[in-house]
């Protein structure tokens, strides 16, 4: 086994073309997988030293977040938290303080867990993933990255270099909530992210709702967002939101939650997250 520190993106892509190559950013999934024997990489490609990979930078009014930026660094970035509180709170739910010191939003995405807390709010935010590979750079909507449990759409030699959270219009807000049977350090049984933009009178103008842990991948629920547009989150709108979320759920049944429970809770979380996002967008709940 080798440990490699590429200095350029092209060098990283070339290393990742090798047999059994794995990307190392925060390592909080990779090292656990190596320990359990689930993965035995031949070459570990540490992308942290590539230019820009550890930076949060402004771009077209939005934020470009390098693939090696830790959850703790996102939390400490006041402007990012102000613009995208839901995305940051989702990432910050991953693991403990120690895990936050290392874990990255891009790594959480690329690990491919259907229950990844960092992903639904990115989907609701319409984040765009910058992928670098042997053929150069390409941009991809975040929702198209996960394809199933532990599976992502990246090709051989490709890696995520950064994720762009777009510019925020006025009167916008997002939120992410998950359910776990304890208060910390657990995997989501269900999760819901809501991203809203309000009109001047407080009516919802745009709404995107994404769910986690209730299907093979985190997913956008278009009907759920549509249920909120044109409303001020009155009871019938919230009922319609929850119903649309429940209809979209295709969860597994396991010891942490039954199908019925996960389906119900997804709707409940979506209602609550919608109210939080609404208030953050400046609406009066």
């Amino acid at each position, binding site marked *: 086994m080798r440990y490699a520190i590429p200095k350029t993106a092209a060098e990283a892509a070339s290393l990742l073309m090798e047999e059994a190559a794995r990307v190392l950013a925060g*390592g909080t999934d990779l090292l*656990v997988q190596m320990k359990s024997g689930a993965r035995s990489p031949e070459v570990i490609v*540490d992308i942290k030293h590539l230019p820009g990979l550890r930076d949060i930078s402004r771009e077209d009014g939005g934020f470009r977040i390098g693939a090696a930026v830790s959850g703790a660094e996102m939390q400490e970035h006041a402007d990012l938290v102000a613009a995208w509180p839901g995305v940051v709170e989702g990432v910050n739910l991953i693991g*403990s*303080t120690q*895990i936050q010191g290392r874990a990255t939003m891009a790594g959480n995405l690329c690990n491919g867990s259907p229950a990844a807390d960092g992903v639904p709010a990115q989907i609701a935010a319409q984040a765009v993933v910058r992928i670098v590979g042997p053929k150069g750079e390409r941009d991809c909507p975040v929702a198209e990255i996960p394809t199933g449990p532990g599976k992502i759409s990246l090709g051989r030699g490709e890696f995520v270099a950064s994720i762009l959270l777009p510019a925020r219009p006025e009167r916008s807000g997002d939120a992410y909530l998950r359910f776990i049977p304890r208060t910390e350090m657990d995997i989501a049984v269900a999760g819901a992210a809501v991203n809203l933009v309000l009109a001047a009178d407080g009516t919802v103008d745009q709404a995107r709702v994404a769910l986690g842990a209730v299907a093979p991948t985190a997913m956008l629920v278009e009907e759920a967002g549509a249920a909120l547009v044109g409303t001020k989150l009155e009871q019938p709108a919230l009922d319609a939101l929850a119903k649309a979320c429940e209809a979209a759920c295709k969860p597994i049944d396991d010891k942490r939650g039954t199908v019925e429970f996960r389906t119900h809770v997804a709707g409940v979380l979506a209602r609550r997250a919608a109210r939080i996002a609404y208030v953050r967008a400046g609406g009066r709940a």
Partner: protein
Amino acid sequence: MKTLHVSTRVNGDETDFVCAPDETLLDALRNRIGLTGAKEGCGTGDCGACSVTLNGRLVCSCLVLAAEAEGAEIGTIEGLADGDKLHVLQQSFLDHAALQCGICTPGILVASKALLEKHPEPTDEEVRYWLAGNLCRCTGYDKIIRAVQDAAQKLRSA
């Protein structure tokens, strides 16, 4: 497997060691440098017994490759006391009997120090959330929280 040569700083001292490419920082600290304060509890980042700081950031050393320590600044429990003079947190843990078997204690002390550097006046809830990744099977945590709060108060008035 090719061995790697790593130059780093541990508790302020220039330190060199050789390691395997898949060796963890925890194993290198314990087996290459002889700093056995950081413990392996779970080896998967769940228990926090291996907590150290890496460039000032609290991490589980079982989830860091030793090779990643090249050029880095590592802080371990061995750097807490000043010679024979215990750190305020260490004395406070003794005063409050905030440990029993002691396996989790180095990690909890390192994590608590990182907390108080960032939040000198935490609420009990903030202490509990910050330390959620440090498992203790003996104390029931209440004494740990009291010891951290007492140390926080002493550090503020120092």
